[in-house]
Each structure stands twice: as structure tokens, then as C-alpha cells.
């Protein structure tokens, strides 16, 4: 792959900073603001672009695990099991394991469906489950929320909003299902 993606992005960043932004009229305040944001976004892209696929793989593992856990919780009780539609979503809605996927866009869409399913199942347990089931579901979701928070803080670190964020690659290798 030549030029490599990081090289393409670095070139865009240089031209934006050295050529385009200085040429903008002084009174074009809206354009200046957008150009500054584009420059900052290029820095962000350079920081995270290499980790996109692993990010989605880790997400897939987390939310597949959560779906399994929530199904187990819902299935403990016949009434709740019925309410959440046991034995679970139709097979064609259940994402396949990340290792079987090769296309990043497919994997991302797969994860979005998966998050929708876990969200719907969690909500139904909250509405129909007993106190113990609701509590167990909450703890399972909280564990996934904490892991996702750590990933997101690393992903967003170049925006400058998260404080003391880690490097994304480090977090993903730590959370990867293969490590």
C-alpha cells in the first residue's frame, strides 16, 4: 500500500496547516473555525487509524459476551424468558464471531446490531425480571460499560477532552480476546 494511509494523512495535515489556513481571509471566521477543526481531526485520525479493526474486534467480543450473559440471566426465570423472547433473537440477527469477518464495515455494522440486541434485552429484563435478575444484569452491563469507557477515552484522547487518556493500541491489546 503506497503511499500508506499515515503518509496520506500527514500530507493533508501539512497542506492544511501551511497552505490553506494561512490563505483564508481574516474575516472568514466560520471558514477559519472549520479549517482549524479539520486540522485537529487529522491529528486524531493519525492517532487512531491503525487500530480501527482491533477496536471492532474487541467490541464484538465484549458485546457477544454480554449477550450470552443477559440471555443466561433472562433464561433463569420462565416468565422473564418469555418476555425477552427466548431463546433469543433470530439466528440471522446474531453476529458471527469477529475472527470469521474480514470486512471492517461489516464488522462495525454487526457490532451495532449486537449493541441494539443487548440493549433491548437489558431493558426487557429491567421491565419484567425479578430484583435478582435486574441486579445481575446491571452488574454485567456495568462491567462492559467500564471497558468501553476505557476504550473510548483512548480513542478520543486527541480531541483533548479526556484527561490522562491512554494510547488506544495499548488499551486494545490489553482488552483483546486473544491476549
Amino acid at each position: 500500500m503506497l503511499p500508506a494511509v499515515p503518509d496520506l494523512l500527514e500530507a493533508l495535515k501539512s497542506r492544511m496547516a501551511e497552505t490553506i489556513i494561512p490563505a483564508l481571509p481574516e474575516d472568514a471566521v466560520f471558514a477559519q473555525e472549520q479549517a482549524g477543526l479539520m486540522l485537529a481531526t487529522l491529528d486524531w485520525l493519525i492517532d487512531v487509524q491503525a487500530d480501527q479493526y482491533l477496536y471492532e474486534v474487541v467490541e464484538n467480543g465484549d458485546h457477544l459476551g454480554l449477550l450470552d450473559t443477559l440471555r443466561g440471566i433472562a433464561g433463569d426465570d420462565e416468565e422473564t424468558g418469555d418476555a425477552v423472547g427466548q431463546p433469543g433473537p433470530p439466528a440471522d440477527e446474531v453476529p458471527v464471531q469477529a475472527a470469521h469477518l474480514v470486512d471492517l464495515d461489516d464488522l462495525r455494522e454487526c457490532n451495532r446490531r449486537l449493541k441494539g440486541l443487548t440493549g433491548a434485552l437489558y431493558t426487557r429484563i429491567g421491565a419484567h425480571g425479578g430484583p435478582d435478575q435486574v441486579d445481575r444484569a446491571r452488574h454485567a452491563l456495568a462491567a462492559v460499560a467500564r471497558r468501553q469507557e476505557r476504550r473510548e477515552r483512548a480513542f478520543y484522547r486527541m480531541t483533548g477532552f479526556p484527561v490522562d487518556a491512554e494510547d488506544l493500541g495499548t488499551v486494545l491489546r490489553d482488552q483483546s480476546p486473544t491476549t
Partner: protein
Amino acid sequence: MSAVTDGLQDRLDSLRATYACERRLEELLTSKLLDRESTATVRAGVGLPDPQASLEQFLADSLDGPVAVGGVSRLRGGGANEAYAFTLTRGPETERLVLRVKTPGAICATDATREFQMLQAVQGLMPTPRPVLLTEDPSYFGAPAFISTFVPGTSAPTFDVPKATGLGVTYGPRLRKALAPAFVQHCAALHSADWSGAGLDAFDVPRSETTDAIDWRLGFWERAWEQDKLEEHPTMLLMSQWLRENRPPVDRVSLLHGDYRNGNFLFDEERGEITAVIDWELCYLGDRHSDLAYTMLPGWGSVDENGTFLVAGLMDEATFLGEYERISGLSVDRDRLHYYSVYNYYWAVVSLLGTGPFHARARTTQLDVMYNFISGLGGRFVGDANALVLED
């Protein structure tokens, strides 16, 4: 009725049944959803094609006598409104004004009439732009819009390099000392104001000693999340559940700004004087702790030279709350502050990780790069919210 329309109607019925909110805001969210199904009616590309011509037509229709419009320039930012400064000439009189147009691709759905009425209601309480004209007719600007006076001032000191939309502005010791007293004074005046008879018919009035106000706000933001999210988020599920389980009744229904923080007021840098409190799009009637907790979010503040955290980059927490209680005569309840911190994170994340990225992806805004960029603040807020909701 087509099958698609039937499906949409079913969805609307379900959303209305699940998420009760204020009447006008329900209509607003419904119109957002309907517009998506009928993209031909949405102003494509965003950004008025000819703001001067649109202004001339509207002002000629709204004012007596000949009018002339000049010096039109688009203002920075504009997460909820597209804003244009312009000069109106009527006979020998010239006046600098601001047009604010509700953008179809706004980062949160807000209502021009509510903003206009609230600005009318707070005249005399604190310096703000004075509302001049309102139109709900989209034929002029493509969406409801209003005109207010232009107030000179800056939202950030010249030495500061603020992030997008004035987030995280810092002021330095001299300006802090000058601006902090007025900042808390205006907040206290707003919350303690007697607003009976203020002409706020675009607002549903919640009952005191009930959870009406927070019920309606949660309904609004939960529905916005449901309509706009690109994907579900575990922290949003946990926050929504926690907020529903812990709703406190409101003891006194106050006028609320909804976005009261550094970056949302203008000031004269030399004199160190607040010239206007701006950005009233998120105003509503409810619990004062909602505004207070928002102002106090760590995401807006900064630390001073001694490492002390400053609320909104202006004053330490004890001073902010102490002065607020002294000036307003209203008490501050720490439990409700905690509750409304979570509430504020919730709605902020709806906007930052839900509505903003939705519109950026749909290409319905020229602020797409900014919306994507400030999703980073959403990521920060998710962490802050987890610390509150998952603390037990």
C-alpha cells in the same frame, strides 16, 4: 396511506406512549422524524443560500417603512442556531442585530418560540440580547428563526485558545475576579425570579412538589436518543435506569437557562464586565439544581495557579454555592446536585454521541466536522457519568 407511512405512524405512536414530554417539544421531535422521511422539505446543505435577501424579505414584511440590510456575516459556532450578524437601516436609524435560525441538523432539537419567550421573560434580570422579532414561518429562512439585538463582547479572552463552541474557556486571575461575582449573581437572579405572568405559553408548567419537570425532560432526551443514536451505549442504558429510579421532586419551579457555563456569556475584556448571557436554546422550567449541577461539571472548569478547581473557570465551588445561596435566598441540596449531575451528563451525551454524529453522518449540517470532533467531550462525559452511576 402507504405501508411506510403506516410504519412511521406506528413508530410515532410508540414513541409518544413511551416518552412523555412537553407539548411543543414532542411536536418538535415528531417534526424532526417526519422531515427525515421527506427529505425534499429539508433545507439541503444548510447555510442560508442568500441570508441578506431572506432578511430583507422578512424585515420588509414585518416592519413598517423601507428597510435596508447590510454587513451580513455568519457567526462562529452555532450548535443549535445558525447565527448571522447584520445591520438594519430604517430611515436615519441603524442597528446591529443578530438572526438566529433553527438548523435542521442541530446538535439538539430546540424551539425558537421558547427561546424568544424566555429572552423576553428575563429582560431586566440580567444583560442579554433583547428579542426583537420572531417567525415560525419557514418560508423566510427555511426554519423558525428570531432576531435579537447584537451585544458586543467576547466569549473568551484573547490569550485563551478555546475548544469548539467556547468549551473550557479560561480567564486568568484578573478577569476571574472581575467576572465571577456577576456570573453567580445572574444565576441567582434567574432562579429566584417570580415568573408568574411572564408570557411563557410555549412551555408546559410543571407542578412543584412533583417530578413533572424531570419526567418531561427525561422523556424528551430519551426520545431524542432513541430517534438519533447510531448505536446503543451501555452507559446510556445505565444512566437512564438510574435517573428513572432516583427522580427527586422539585421544591420550587424556576426559570432555567439550561446551558449556563463559561463560553455562554459575553464580556468586555478591558472592563471585565459581563455584557450578555447568551445561548438560551435549552431553557426550561424546572429544578434550579439542574442549572447549578451543569455549571459545576468538571468538564467546563479548570484549576487555578494553586491547583484549586474553579467552577466554570471562575471561582471555587464553596464560593459559587455560598454566594448563590446568599444572593438567591434559595438552598442548595447536595443530593439533588448529584442527581442533576447525572441528568446533565445524560442529555449532553445524547447530543454529543447521538444527535451530533447522526447529523454529521446524514450530511444535514455544515458543522459536521465540529460535531464529530466534540464527540470527544461525549467520551469524557461517559467516563464522568460512570463514576457517578457505578459508584456503588
